[in-house]
């Protein structure tokens, strides 16, 4: 039987590693890679919510993350079309 804590600690490790990856990870000069790296802490936070039984918060967080990724990708695409130096 797995302990409940394992989800919490996995989430914590994912959040910290993911935020480091987003700030100084390989290839983050490309904003697309940076945006995709933000998904790692998002998964970590989802696991933390799961540990605490925050169902509503978890569902809303998943929806909000999807929409935020959409907005960021739209901004990246539009800025690249404008020829801005990213």
């Amino acid at each position, binding site marked *: 039987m797995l302990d409940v804590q394992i989800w919490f600690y996995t989430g914590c490790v994912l959040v910290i590693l993911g935020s480091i990856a987003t700030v100084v990870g390989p290839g983050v000069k490309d904003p697309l890679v940076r945006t995709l790296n933000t998904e790692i802490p998002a998964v970590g936070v989802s696991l933390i*919510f799961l540990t605490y039984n925050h169902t509503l918060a978890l569902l809303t967080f998943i929806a909000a993350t999807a929409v935020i990724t959409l907005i960021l990708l739209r901004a990246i695409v539009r800025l690249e079309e404008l020829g801005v130096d990213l």
Partner: protein
Amino acid sequence: MIVPVQVPELVVSLYPVAIWVGIITGLIGLLGISFQKNDLSVLILTDIVGVAMLIFVAGVATDLAEALILPGLVVELAEIMAISEILLSREIRKNNISGEDLVPTALPLNMEILKTAPTFIAVVLIAYGVFLSGFTGGVIAGGGILFYILSKSARGLPVELFEGLAGASGIAWVFWIVGFLLFFVGPPFWLLGLMLAAFGILIKVASKVGLIGILTREEFKKE
């Protein structure tokens, strides 16, 4: 110890870890922001700081904490939306581009499934959201609206479905308040109050997610 006895042992043992993880993540995110010169990267790193904020609130692990996470998420969403719009309009003004193509890609594909499938999926999502009601239903219905708008606008079709969205949102807000008031004024009508609150918050949340549709509509008007 100032923690009440009703709090489970598990939550108490995890609380310091949650706070430390929140502090470390927030520091990493803020340091990244302070070293960045690129505006877009700063916008993306704001997401990390938001994650740190969520861990702080989630660590309390009560129903109130869960309820506080929801407005936090909405605020974060609105913030990122607004900043990205500011960034885009500033670059457009700086480069003095007129007649800029505002829709990213208008695909020249002529397949029937591209016309019919978005409508069907949107209808299913909205119907399921209305069936669920409440906050979760609002998110799902809003996702359906958003999916419909995005898939239509990606093909360059005008979307004129959401003219009165702001008005509906205001009326839904009134339903929600009346529902809550009924709990206190007329406790025998609790079922009516519950339903009013549930469907009020449904329309409210759905229209919030559908706000992105208004953004695309504004772009069509500019054209």
